[in-house]
């Protein structure tokens, strides 16, 4: 069982639904051909490092899947190449370290961004707690 990763950039000029539809067609295409989808990562709108087709931003998607049929990848790439909604794509075969890394990343073990998010979440919790403390006495005092 080989594990692959397909990245593609969807044209950001399309409406939100159309972008999601474009991504979903490829997720469906992968699923229909008997492949097991491991993870669909929607990386969101990102600034491109250089303009592609006169666009400076793009919606990034990354689909990780398991596949045994080696005729499927050329099929998928052909479909991506023919689609005008897709600005760029890249398919990569993952080695075992890549699979391990992606699993860790999904669980939030790698990456500074996740740490920051967790810290933010904790901060927000604390703020809410303190806010509740502050609000309650004032509410009582108002009642009095």
């Amino acid at each position: 069982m080989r594990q692959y990763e397909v990245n593609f950039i969807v044209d950001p000029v399309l409406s939100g639904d159309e972008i999601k539809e474009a991504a979903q067609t490829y997720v469906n295409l992968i699923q229909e051909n008997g492949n097991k989808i491991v993870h669909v990562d929607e990386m969101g709108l990102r600034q491109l490092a250089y303009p592609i087709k006169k666009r400076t931003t793009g919606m990034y998607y990354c689909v990780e899947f398991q596949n045994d049929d080696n005729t499927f990848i050329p099929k998928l790439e052909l479909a991506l190449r023919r689609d005008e909604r897709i600005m760029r794509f890249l398919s990569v075969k993952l080695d075992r370290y890549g699979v391990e890394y992606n699993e860790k990343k999904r669980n939030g073990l790698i990456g500074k961004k996740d740490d920051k998010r967790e810290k933010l979440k904790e901060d927000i919790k604390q703020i809410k707690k303190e806010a509740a403390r502050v609000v309650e006495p004032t509410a009582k005092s108002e009642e009095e």
Partner: protein
Amino acid sequence: MASREDIKFLNNPNIGKKRKKYCRFRRYGIKYIDYKDPDFLLQFINPQGKILPRRITGNSLKYQKKVAIAIKRARHLAILPFVADNMK
């Protein structure tokens, strides 16, 4: 008059000594280089966006090749630029 002990501190023996370079992937056990992480790959390119040679990064051959592949993949996906004026 400078005694012998003073002279010892006047010329620092560590000046001019080069710190030994090492391969960070071997030392810290990094097995996979993520091509979607531009902040990490930024360590291996110069301000013009060129890949730094092994004699500067100190990477072992195995990982230098992997770094190069990761940077090229990132460039294809417009995560890193092909050419830049001032990256850092």
